[in-house]
């Protein structure tokens, strides 16, 4: 081996070692690409060493380049494959290719080669995990033919490149997976916490925008009138569709296609898209986009779409990634819908119960009581016709009437317990005063509620105070009960405190469990605080402007 040959080999080995170090250190592929083309251009003393990546659409993109012509071929530039040239030969055969004279070449790329005065060239494929990723090419001018072993020597570099790319890809895939899992977990936590769907929508669309290589993301709901409403959007500035805006379906666009097929949809070019939605999308610079259906309890609820303004189509794995987030959204909507239904049905059950109580109260007062009074009047009339003060019949009649009077009193008390007429007539203030008067314990009232509230709210508040007074009297050995009511804002707040024994256990059967149900049915909640020896306090909050009351 000559000194020159030895020196060349040593140089090549050290160049390979430098590249290998970069790969081992996991530097970003872009840096490795630039370093490799630079090393290769110097080592082979060529006018151009370039790295190209094959694209699915039959083009090749320049990803790095070095040498005298390195500045002329811009990174990111795309070239059509076809004809007889290095790029196309490597693409077609998957093997190294050589062209010693560009005289007989053809196709768009050979025109470029001639433009840059390239004479001969060698290309070797970059094969990443069995698939053809791209090629590394070296080119000379006509005067400088490439050595015979160029392919073999170049292959050592492309192998290193393939390793670097594979590493970077798996790292990226891992990172992407981890990020997606984290995003899914964040959204799932929101869903599990039962936050309002609008919050989930906003969070999801934010994650979609962050996770996927898109400029624009939308979540839409299909309306019964054949329109679509944007419920959440993500994007840069004015590119966004306004939340809450409605659009008619129709034409060739994501919203309409998902609606018609109920399946994921992809549009790789908005040039052919049609309908009002796509016109606006095009106006916002959208080039390619995908959408997946949001299916709630088996019916198509809406869709989630994401798009880019880049020329390059969205990667093929974008649909499944979008779909996994869409599933969470569907779950959130399903949960919220069943929760709302449950809430409404509880409210209906309570309201139906109240209506029955009102009916019973009326029946007792206007029916049974009235009949008893009539019967007693009959007895009085009978009495008046018999003018014997001492006779047996008179005594019986008198006793019967006394008994009936007792029944009447009992009946009145029962009716009052079933439904407090004063509450429907005059509201919480007078009703609480009446409860306080009838309580065996002194009751101090602090009432800030002049206005009338929805009936279910008033009834719930009334029963809570009634039950609390009963408990304080029966069990707490209290000396006074205070009742504070504040219903000036959109939430009714009621606090009932006694100074008794405390230690009340709401699980011990008391009527409080039923009351808690009643209050929760209205979207409110009841809290019991009863430390031993320090009295019992009940705090209640009920939203007054609850949609379920309508």
């Amino acid at each position, binding site marked *: 081996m000559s000194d020159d040959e030895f020196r060349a080999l040593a140089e090549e080995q050290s160049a390979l070692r430098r590249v290998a170090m970069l790969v081992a250190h996991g530097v970003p592929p872009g840096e490795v690409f630039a370093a490799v083309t630079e090393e290769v251009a110097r080592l082979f003393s060529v006018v151009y060493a370039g790295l190209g990546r094959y694209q699915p659409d039959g083009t090749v993109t320049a990803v790095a380049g070095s040498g005298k012509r390195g500045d002329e071929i811009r990174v990111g530039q795309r070239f059509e494959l076809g004809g007889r040239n290095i790029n196309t030969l490597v693409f077609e055969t998957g093997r190294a290719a050589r062209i010693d004279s560009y005289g007989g070449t053809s196709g768009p790329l050979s025109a470029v080669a001639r433009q840059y005065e390239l004479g001969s060239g060698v290309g070797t494929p970059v094969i990443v995990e069995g698939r053809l990723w791209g090629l590394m090419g070296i080119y000379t001018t006509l005067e400088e033919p490439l050595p015979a072993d160029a392919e073999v020597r170049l292959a050592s570099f492309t192998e290193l490149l393939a390793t670097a790319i594979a590493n970077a890809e798996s790292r990226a895939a891992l990172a992407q997976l981890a990020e997606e899992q984290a995003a899914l977990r964040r959204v799932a936590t929101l869903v599990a916490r039962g936050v309002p769907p609008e919050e989930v929508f906003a969070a999801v669309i934010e994650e979609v925008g962050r996770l996927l290589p898109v400029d624009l993301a939308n979540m839409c709901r299909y309306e019964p009138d054949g329109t679509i409403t944007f419920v959440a959007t993500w994007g840069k500035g004015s590119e966004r569709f306004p939340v809450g805006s409605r659009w008619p379906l129709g034409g060739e666009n994501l919203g309409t296609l998902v609606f018609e097929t109920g399946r994921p949809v992809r549009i790789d070019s908005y040039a052919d898209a049609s309908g009002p939605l796509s016109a606006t999308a095009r106006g916002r610079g959208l080039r390619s986009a995908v959408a997946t259906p949001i299916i709630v309890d088996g019916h198509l609820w809406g869709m989630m779409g994401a798009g880019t303004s880049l020329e390059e189509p969205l990667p093929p794995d974008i649909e499944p990634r979008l779909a996994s987030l869409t599933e969470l959204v569907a779950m959130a909507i399903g949960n919220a819908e069943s929760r709302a239904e449950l809430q409404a049905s509880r409210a209906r059950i309570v309201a139906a119960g109240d209506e029955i109580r009102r009916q019973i109260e*009326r029946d007792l*007062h*206007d029916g049974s*009581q*009235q*009949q*008893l*009074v*009539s019967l*007693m*009047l*009959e007895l*009085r*009339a009978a009495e*008046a016709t018999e003018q014997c003060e001492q006779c047996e019949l008179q005594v019986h009649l008198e006793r019967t*009437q006394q008994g*009936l*009077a007792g029944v*009447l*009193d009992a009946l*009145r008390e029962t*009716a*009052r317990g079933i439904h407090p*007429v*004063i509450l429907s*007539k*005059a509201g919480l203030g*007078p009703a609480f*005063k*009446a409860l*306080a*008067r*009838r*309580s*065996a*314990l*002194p*009751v*101090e009232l602090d009432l800030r509620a002049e206005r009338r509230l929805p009936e279910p709210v008033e009834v719930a508040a009334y029963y809570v105070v009634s039950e609390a007074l009963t408990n304080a009297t029966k069990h707490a050995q209290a000396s*006074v009960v205070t009742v504070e009511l504040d219903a000036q804002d959109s939430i009714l707040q009621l606090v009932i405190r006694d100074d008794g024994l405390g230690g009340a256990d709401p699980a011990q059967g008391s009527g409080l469990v039923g009351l808690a149900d009643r209050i929760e049915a209205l979207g409110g909640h009841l809290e019991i605080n009863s430390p031993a020896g320090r009295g019992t306090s009940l705090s209640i909050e009920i939203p007054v402007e609850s949609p379920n009351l309508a």
Partner: protein
Amino acid sequence: MPSLSGATETGPATRVAVADDDVLLREGLASLFDRSGFEVVGQAGDGTELLNLVRSTRPELAVIDIRMPPRHSTEGLEAAQVIRQELPDTAIVLLSAHIEVEEAMELLAGGERLGYLLKSRVTDVAEFIGTIRTIVAGGSVVDPSLVQELVRARRRRDPLDALSPREREVLALMAEGASNAGIAERIFVSEGTVEKHVRSILIKLDLPESGSDHRRVLAVLRFLEAR
């Protein structure tokens, strides 16, 4: 023993209109009044009928059920207010299945010759007729059950604690609408003794001295409700 007769010793029988949607009860009431020496000028089943009846017959007394058709809410009360406006001399007795303090005060604010009673009171005929006569004569009467509830209500710092048991008894009768003479009769003491009790109560509770029995009822009720 008060006279059970609706007629005064010298004048003709008191003319009464009866309104209740329950026919059986209405008939019972009418027959009761009839037996007690009143002249029943007619019966009505709802507020409109009552107004027509009262306008055409001008009775001295209207006995009215509060809950009547069509809403079964406070139709009787509303009719009573119209009668009070159009024919203020007509004595009005409202009968109700239950008695509320707010309603009582609202009613009493409308003037004298008013009664607000539980429906079941009619079964104690002697007492009921006595009460009716008090009202026709210009008094105002509130159902004892309401007054009892107000007097018995417990307060932490209760001004009523300053009253003797006898004074409490007198206060309750004042609230029901009894005159001093009426109270004397009920608790078997002289009218002079009742006057002394009443003065003492008014001073202890810081209540205004008032000439008419009606205003006295209203003042005491207000005090009891607000205390």
